[in-house]
């Protein structure tokens, strides 16, 4: 006679099977070894305005660094931590996080668990500053080590950390989007159009948009069926920075800091949109709307020229099988006049208001203000535009006559002409969504230039109104 399974036996067996299944499905924890390059001894450099930091003895103290989960960043954090430990004896724990980082900060603070030092993009700290979740560092860091921030740092990197009349962190990165065109040297040589790539002709950048378009057209590839196999150009990814930069070159700021007005409804905005989106896509047919950022599309071979990122040359060597990508300065909207740019700032370091080891964190930020700290960070991606003016002229970091050195030097040329968005218009992230969306609508043919700019102007004014009303 068969025995029936009792309820108790069934529940016990089900629990055992469930627990066993969960244990079997648990992912294997793979410890990824972080490779820290041998630290380069930093030669003592006497630079005008260089901050004077005296490392204190912090032996036995520990602190926590949060930053981006991305290998170049993680390696950089470890290098910086190792340098700081050499100077002070304080030991760091590095905890990389997924994007976006500000969410981790705010939720960590709400839970009472937050790092002592956080590496974060300047524009992302705006909502944290509004929530009083970040320490102001004017007195704690800059005044304490005698740093004149306006001469030590370039405007675009610094301004991304300045809100409500104070500075809230130490920038380490200048701006590396909107002012550069990345050109694939191998392809340019293969197509025999070296005379159209400015750096190979002794120029830092394109004289005008026509020059860039001519090269893009020469590099565009069409297959036998008449379909475009490789587009000549892509500006995908940082639309609004390009738009604002072209407007600035034409003589009109997108945001008037004095009168607190937007100028997306101006003639200059219209002309900028034509140059950025309408002409290359609809008149010349050398560009189309792609899902990926221009830099990724370039690596994938979908586009030739990317209006992309100053760090593309270094990144290409590691992430694109050694592809040789060069930097040229973005063209001027008025041939003969220097191109001007508007950027989003870059990465840097902050101290959360609820840091458990604020003294160690402040000393770390002082270290990051020094030439040594800035230079060590600038090694990221194989070469990066530093927030520190002096570091961008460093001969060891960007040796003249080397591929990366010359590319980053040209990136530095553009960076010197770059300012940050501005302030007191509301949340930079929200502004970016509105203005980038306007450019995108024109690029995909969803709206005319007039319609897209009018809508963006309306949404920006709505945003400003809410900002002024305290929403």
């Amino acid at each position, binding site marked *: 006679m068969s025995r029936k399974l009792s*309820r108790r036996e069934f529940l016990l067996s089900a629990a055992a099977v469930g627990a066993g299944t969960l244990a079997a499905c648990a992912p294997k924890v793979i410890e990824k070894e972080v490779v820290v390059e041998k630290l380069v001894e930093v030669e003592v450099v006497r630079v005008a305005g260089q901050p004077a930091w005296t490392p204190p003895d912090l032996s036995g103290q520990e602190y926590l660094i949060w930053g981006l989960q991305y290998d170049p960043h993680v390696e950089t954090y470890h290098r910086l931590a190792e340098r700081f430990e050499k100077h002070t004896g304080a030991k760091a724990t590095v905890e990389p996080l997924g994007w*976006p980082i*500000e*969410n981790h900060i*705010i939720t960590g*603070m*709400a839970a009472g668990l937050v790092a002592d030092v956080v590496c974060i993009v300047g524009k992302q700290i705006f*909502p*944290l500053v*509004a*929530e*009083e*979740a970040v320490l102001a560092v004017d007195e704690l860091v800059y005044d304490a080590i005698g740093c004149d921030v306006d001469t030590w740092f370039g405007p675009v990197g610094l301004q991304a950390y300045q809100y409500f009349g104070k500075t809230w962190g130490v920038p380490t990165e200048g701006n590396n989007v909107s002012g550069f065109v990345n050109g694939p040297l191998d392809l340019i040589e293969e197509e025999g159009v070296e005379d159209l790539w400015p750096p190979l002709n002794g120029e830092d950048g394109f004289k005008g948009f026509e020059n860039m378009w001519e090269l893009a057209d020469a590099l565009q590839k069409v297959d036998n069926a008449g379909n*475009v196999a490789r587009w000549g150009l892509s500006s995908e990814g940082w639309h609004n920075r390009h738009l604002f930069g072209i407007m600035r070159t034409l003589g009109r700021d997108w945001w008037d800091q004095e009168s607190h007005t937007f100028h997306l409804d101006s003639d200059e905005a219209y002309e900028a949109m034509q140059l950025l989106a309408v002409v290359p896509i609809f008149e010349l047919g050398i560009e189309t*709307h*792609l*899902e990926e950022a221009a830099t990724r599309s370039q690596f994938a071979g*979908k586009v030739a020229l990317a209006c992309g990122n100053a760090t593309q040359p270094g990144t290409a060597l590691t992430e694109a099988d050694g592809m040789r990508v060069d930097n040229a300065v973005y063209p001027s909207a008025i041939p003969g006049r220097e191109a001007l740019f508007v950027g989003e700032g870059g990465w840097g370091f902050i101290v959360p208001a*609820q840091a458990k080891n604020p003294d160690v964190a402040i000393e770390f930020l002082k270290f990051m203000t020094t030439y040594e700290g800035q230079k060590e960070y600038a090694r990221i991606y194989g070469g990066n535009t530093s927030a520190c003016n002096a570091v961008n002229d460093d001969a060891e970091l960007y040796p003249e006559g080397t591929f990366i050195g010359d590319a980053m030097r040209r990136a530095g040329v553009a960076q010197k002409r770059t300012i940050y968005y501005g302030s007191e218009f509301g*949340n930079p*992230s*929200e502004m970016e*969504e509105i203005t980038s*969306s306007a450019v*995108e*609508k024109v*690029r*995909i*043919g*969803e*709206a005319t230039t007039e319609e897209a700019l009018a809508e963006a102007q*309306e*949404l920006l004014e*709505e945003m400003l*109104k*809410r900002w002024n009303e305290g*929403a």
Partner: protein
Amino acid sequence: MRTLRNPQFQFGFVVLALVLTWYVLFSFRPVVLGFKMAVTDYDLLNPADSKLVGLQHFETIFNKYKLFWVSVRNTITYAVMVNLGTVPIALVFAYCLAKVANGRSWYQWALFLPVVVSMAAVALLFRFLMDPGLGIFNHALKAAGLPPSRWLTGPRSAMYSIVIVALWKGLGGNIVILTAGLLNVPRELYDVAKVDGASSWKTFWYVTLPLLSHVLKLVMILVTIGSLQVYTSAMILTRGGPGRATYMISQFVVEEAFTHLRFGLASSSAFVLFLAILVITLMQLRLTRVGWEY
């Protein structure tokens, strides 16, 4: 007292208490806290200092947020398209499955497989398939002599594309539910209809459909609720673009909360979504009420 000492009652009480505790902690309490956030100027770091603002957030999103209405329009468009696609297609498949004598479970298994695959994985897969240049969909269209589509990169085609993904992913579950409903229709009624000389179409319209009405109502309500809360597919496939063509209300909520740290506004818009789903569901229940029963 005898009931309280009954082991079956005690067992049932323990199980229910555990489940209710879980729901109270992780479902009801967050809803109540969410409403509290919606009527306060919520200070995440010092919640006790949050000031009561009443319905100000609701007034702000209704009157001062054009993007909110863009997201509402897109969400309703998406929900209507998914409903119009899911119910008829699922019904056709279920009707065919109910007729299958051998191997029905294998067909159901194959149709249900997309349901159990993670939406994130599905979305990434379709991003590759729908790539305008390299995706296999455009290659297939070209091979058939049809013009290629821009799929996720076109302002109009983007909405259709995410609806297609939703249909592919969600059809299986609804087919299984409808098949079960169809198989529960008494066979005698079909025999009677056959004896009375009813055609296949009349049998379906006058016998099958009325008896399937409760199950159909369930499917429509579930699809409506699910489609109004769309987030993962739209976020991974298009991130609300291009040009906000697929910007949904759930994305508006997430952006307000976790990008702009405006938890009060985010909670109020989530509450508006909750009320909208409740009203629509009640309307569906009312409008699809059957006036008769066999």
